[in-house]
């Protein structure tokens, strides 16, 4: 049996990143009976969030309301919302499933997910808030030639957002089909339509509150479940781990590294994607503009780190708890194949049923659905900001578009992105989409993060260096992932990959940073000189907040 455990670990869960769904369920053809408890709880969530959207719509009049919730979100609320963006269905289901399969190695995802937050705090949060307006692109464009830089950052945003959206949509469809007993297309359309309604009418205010409610429900559900697991074992961590090693096919090996990723270069590259990718995710960076000032931006990160850290410790307990509760039970676990019924992402769901019964199963299922809904809303809003604020207002209209046009165009972009997400979600039903998340994180780590970081910290950065180097980073990421095992072997079916490593971030981020710096140094144009001169003013603004976008209307 240990062979089966191991094989599942190598193939099923390999291509996943912590903050994103790896929701690849084993069978989706069989139609499950409709789960009334789960559906009713989800309906309550929908009614409440639609009520909030109605309330938010009354308050969404200007562009600043639409993209930055009027800059009226507190640090605590924003911290919860950021944590909500990060605690996607994959964190609950994907990471607990990884731990169920691979034990200790699931901790790599957990630690990578946490370690990115201090980086966001120490390097980005305050400066970003002081320099930007609605998108991280604003901060980059402040002293460079805005148009080319905005186009590239908007591309980085849109690529990351669309890939992430596809993965979420397909995950939502599969998950809801399995848990709720409603068809795949129905689930994708439900998510798409609700998300369009939240974002179009309620903008960032509704998106933030949907995320806050969901994060609270998710933290509550995970706390209860972890408590029940530990109570069952008389609150002994020792017996949790001991029982798990007795029941798991790999025995004591589940408490040692080596179950999921065996090749060192891939592991280091994965670690790099996790830690720097998060720091470049556009929908998370965007949240720093919803608070009044840099001080609240700082507090947001502190709260977010606390919530995420707490949540991941719970997920770690749930993963091992699932081994204890589920692995020996033929209702959940097929010992002939060594796999969970429904796929490895079902570990937390099965655990909810085994440890807490049907009502709680319904609750956790509804929370999982709500989680996907909240995350896609944030992604869509971020994509819409790239289209309307970065490209339309600033590049096409040179920053001179009338207010009413901007809000209208933002809404149109939201609907268009939502429809695109639904169409792609249905088109990719039968595909393994886990690699898209890897790609989204890698693009964020190789395009968005280097440009943002260097624009804030390096006087010598020039427009030419940023645009050309960033493009090299984007192309390298895509080429490496296409030629690597994930697409070349797993998707296209060739016997051997041209590029041997699965995760591009280590190589593509290095390529990006080296070429941005090298090309900036070679750039001797007058524009390069003026960019360097503007750096002093930028430094004053980023440190003091003088000139930062305030909480008042523009």
């Amino acid at each position: 049996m240990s062979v089966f455990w191991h094989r599942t670990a190598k193939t099923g869960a390999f291509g996943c990143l912590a903050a994103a769904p790896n929701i690849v369920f084993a069978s989706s053809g069989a139609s499950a009976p409709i789960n009334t408890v789960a559906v009713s709880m989800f309906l309550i969530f929908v009614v409440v969030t639609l009520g909030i959207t109605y309330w938010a719509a009354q308050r969404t009049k200007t562009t600043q309301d639409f993209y930055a919730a009027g800059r009226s979100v507190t640090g605590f609320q924003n911290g919860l919302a950021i944590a909500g963006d990060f605690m996607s269905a994959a964190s609950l289901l994907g990471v607990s499933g990884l731990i169920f399969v691979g034990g200790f190695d699931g901790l790599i995802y957990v630690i990578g997910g946490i370690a990115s937050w201090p980086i966001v705090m120490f390097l980005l949060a305050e400066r970003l808030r002081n320099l930007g307006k609605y998108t991280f692109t604003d901060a980059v464009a402040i002293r460079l030639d805005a148009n080319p830089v905005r186009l590239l950052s908007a591309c980085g945003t849109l690529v990351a957002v669309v890939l992430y959206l596809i993965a979420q949509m397909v995950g939502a469809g599969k998950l809801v089909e399995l848990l709720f007993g409603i068809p795949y297309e129905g689930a994708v359309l439900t998510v798409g339509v609700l998300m369009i309604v939240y974002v179009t009418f309620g903008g960032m205010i509704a998106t933030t509150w949907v995320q806050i409610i969901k994060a609270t429900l998710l933290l509550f559900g995970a706390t209860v479940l972890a408590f029940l697991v530990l109570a069952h074992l008389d609150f002994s961590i020792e017996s949790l781990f001991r029982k798990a090693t007795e029941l798991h096919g790999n025995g004591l090996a589940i408490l040692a590294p080596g179950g999921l990723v065996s090749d060192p270069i891939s592991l280091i590259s994965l670690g790099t994607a996790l830690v720097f990718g998060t720091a470049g995710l556009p929908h998370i960076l965007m949240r720093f503009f919803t608070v009044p000032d840099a001080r609240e931006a700082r507090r947001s990160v502190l709260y977010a780190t606390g919530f995420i850290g707490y949540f991941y410790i719970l997920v770690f307990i749930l993963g091992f708890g699932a081994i204890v509760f589920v692995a020996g039970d033929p209702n959940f676990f097929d010992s002939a194949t060594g796999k969970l019924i429904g796929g490895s992402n079902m570990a937390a769901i099965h655990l909810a049923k085994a440890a807490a019964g049907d009502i709680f199963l319904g609750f956790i299922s509804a929370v999982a659905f709500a989680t996907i809904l909240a995350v896609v809303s944030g992604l869509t809003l971020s994509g819409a900001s790239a289209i309307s604020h970065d490209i339309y207002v600033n590049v096409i209209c040179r920053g001179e578009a009338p207010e009413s046009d901007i809000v209208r165009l933002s809404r149109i972009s939201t609907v268009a992105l939502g429809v695109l997400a639904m169409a792609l979600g249905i088109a990719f039903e039968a595909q393994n989409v886990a690699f898209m998340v890897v790609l989204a994180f890698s693009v964020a780590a190789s395009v968005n993060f280097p440009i943002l970081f260097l624009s804030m910290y390096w006087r010598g950065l020039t427009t030419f260096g940023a645009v050309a180097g960033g493009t090299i980073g984007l192309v390298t990421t895509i080429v490496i992932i296409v030629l690597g095992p994930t697409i070349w072997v797993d998707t296209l079916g060739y016997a051997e990959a041209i590029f041997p490593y699965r995760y591009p971030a280590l190589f593509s981020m290095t390529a990006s940073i080296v070429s941005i710096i090298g090309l900036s140094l070679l750039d001797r144009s007058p524009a390069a000189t003026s960019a360097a001169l503007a750096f002093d003013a930028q430094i004053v603004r980023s440190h003091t907040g003088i000139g930062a976008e305030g909480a008042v209307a523009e």
Partner: protein
Amino acid sequence: MEELYRHIIANPEFHALRKRRSRFSWMLLSIVLGSYYTFIFVVALKPSALAIPLHSGTVITWGIPVGLSIILLCLALTAFFVSRANNTFDPATRSIIDAAERACLETDPNVD
């Protein structure tokens, strides 16, 4: 506003504060990245080091407390950063801005 910027750039206290802040940030950052990449490299290159049991008679390996302490370290350093920024850097920044505003008024009383 540009006048204000000029006064701040000309103030040596601003540059001293900048240096202190950035030294502080980079120090904390190197602790986080250092421990994170040490963990990743050990998992990648010498996983057996983390597979040693804590003491005889337990199944819990060193990997578990090491992993948990990285999580707690990240949280603690983030909290330390916020408290330092609130208590030390923010007041210092405020007094530099005030000084610049006073200087602006002295040179040109009509500026806001």
